[in-house]
């Protein structure tokens, strides 16, 4: 077993997990409050990436600053989407709620294609190539920065929910929609703001990913799925859960194939667990969690 390799894998998985957390946080927030799964989540992240990329192209401002603009634009998009579509489907049967958001995912994906073209883009931002050596390990600077900013945003969102009036209303509406309505909260507005914050999270995550990943209109869908897994793992609606879940999935997918291969070899089985099957690790974790602890690691409430 190559310990350095495993450590390196764990480290980069952990750093990426921070960004996963932020993506999942948005999904979790939306689900926790509205009980709606945003199937357009990954596609909206791609919009966040393109916004940051466009700013880099036009003004040269690094994505590590312009992610704020991504967040604002995605907030507006999310707000409008909630007002126009999501708000009307809140009382639909669960299966019915899937469709409009799948439709919106197609709209986001293909309009990105129309606006920004089909090519893979990998803009050369300032920090894109720097890395720090730490003994035998390399720390990727953009990953480290994306990680730190993602954690910062997550904490800010948590503080916002705990301390501000709007945040308190959101939490109240999440607990009891009718109750919030009775005490005079404008539930529709609260919902729209909450959806906007959720999409702003994913939008800023998109901006942070620009220096790390090439972007194309069609890369969104897997992110929806992975944030799904993280949210279930951490516990639906639990924001701390989304954070921890992100780290677990990030590390598990990164070191999983290598570790399993080593276990195979240790058992005398000449089998290789290919990297192409790394998602199996996540899905396996998910199934186990679903069966043993369906409320998730941090979900207190009953399912």
């Amino acid at each position, binding site marked *: 077993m190559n310990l350095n390799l495993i450590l390196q894998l764990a480290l980069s998985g952990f750093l990426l997990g921070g960004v996963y957390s932020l993506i999942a946080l948005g999904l979790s927030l939306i*689900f926790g409050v509205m009980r709606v*799964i945003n199937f357009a989540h990954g596609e909206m992240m791609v919009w966040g990436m393109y916004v940051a990329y466009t700013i880099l192209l036009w003004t040269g401002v690094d994505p590590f600053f312009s992610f704020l603009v991504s967040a604002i634009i995605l907030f507006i998009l999310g707000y409008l989407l909630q007002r126009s*579509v999501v708000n*009307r*489907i809140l009382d*639909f*049967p*669960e*299966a*019915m709620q*899937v*469709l*409009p958001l*799948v*439709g*919106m*995912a*197609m*709209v986001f*994906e*293909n*309009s990105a*294609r*129309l606006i920004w073209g*089909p090519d893979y883009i990998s803009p050369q931002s300032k920090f894109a190539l720097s890395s720090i050596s730490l003994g035998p390990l390399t720390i990727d600077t953009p990953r480290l920065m994306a990680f730190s900013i993602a954690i910062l945003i997550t904490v800010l969102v948590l503080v916002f929910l705990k301390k501000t009036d709007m945040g308190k209303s959101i939490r109240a509406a999440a607990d009891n929609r009718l109750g919030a309505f009775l005490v005079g909260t404008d539930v529709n507005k609260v919902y729209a703001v909450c959806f906007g914050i959720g999409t702003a999270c994913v939008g800023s995550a998109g901006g942070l990913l620009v220096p790390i990943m090439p972007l194309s*209109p069609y890369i969104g*869908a897997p992110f929806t*799925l992975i944030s*799904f*897994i993280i949210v*279930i793992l951490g516990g*639906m609606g639990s924001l701390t859960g989304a954070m921890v879940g992100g780290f677990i999935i990030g590390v598990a997918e990164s070191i999983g194939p290598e570790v399993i291969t080593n276990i195979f070899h240790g058992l005398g089985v000449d089998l290789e667990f*290919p990297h*192409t*099957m790394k*998602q*199996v690790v996540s*899905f*396996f974790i*998910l*199934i186990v969690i*679903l*069966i043993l602890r*369906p409320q998730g690691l941090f979900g207190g409430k009953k*399912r």
Partner: protein
Amino acid sequence: MRKLYLFLLLAFLILLVLPKVMSSYALGIFIMIFFYAYLGQSWNILTGYTGVISLGHSLYVGIGAYMTYLLTLTLGLPPWIGMWIGGICAGAVGLVIGFFGFRFGLKGVYFVLLTISFAEIGRLIVLHLKVFGSFQGLFITPHFSAVNFQFKDNVPYYYIALGYVVFSLIVVRLLERSKIGRYMVALREEEEAAESLGVDVFKYKMIAIFISAFMTSLAGAFYTNYLYYLHPSTMMSMAFSIEIILRPIIGGMGTVLGPVIGSFLITPLAEISRTYFAKAGYEGLHLVIYGFLLVAVVLFFPRGVISYMKKALSPLLSGEKSH
């Protein structure tokens, strides 16, 4: 009721003679309408009737397609026989998923995630199996003959696909009128009440998922021999599962005719948006329009198109109570 049956008979007769007057291209669209109506109907048995949402039905299509192929390859069994064995395998997998889901009481979004997980693991496993062509996918060699389920012309495919739909309609109609079907609906509406009345919820959910998986997988044989290429990343993907559930949701879940109506609406919509809005320089526009149409249909017909059609047609079908 009789009027509805007469109406359906008439529609069926029209569909029977259509190949005489339609081009191969139009038949191809009808084949896709039937194919998805059948898949939607199979999904409807589980989700529409028992309320358990599955987003992993592409898994069963995959099992059906690959088992049928495998039996032809190893034992020389024609697809006509192999598909039923594939169906039983898919049903068995359905039971395993059902066991985990229902025994541990997973509902709503949790069951959705469970089905997605199994489907994705299944997809990744098939993707790594050499016998199924692994990442290359399977290139099916065409030997055009009725025994092989392979035809040169679209007309036989058309009648087979139509046969699939009629078969599914009969199955669902019989199921709906049977004791099993009534229990299924009862536990969809009021699970606790049904349970307290002594309905074995677990058992009926298991029956539903078995029938649903079994029927879904039969479509795999059709897919294989119509498109001649199998790759798990297309026909076992989550995108394909979503494709399966679109039509029954839009047509009306938990109804016999909903999936068919949904398919008659959605498949041409996709086709029309592709034909008229896919212009050079604007690639992707037709999918934007299609996406908006999906949203609009759900917003305007939240209970499925069928309930509005029923209202509109009720004078014509007077005497018809519920369907």
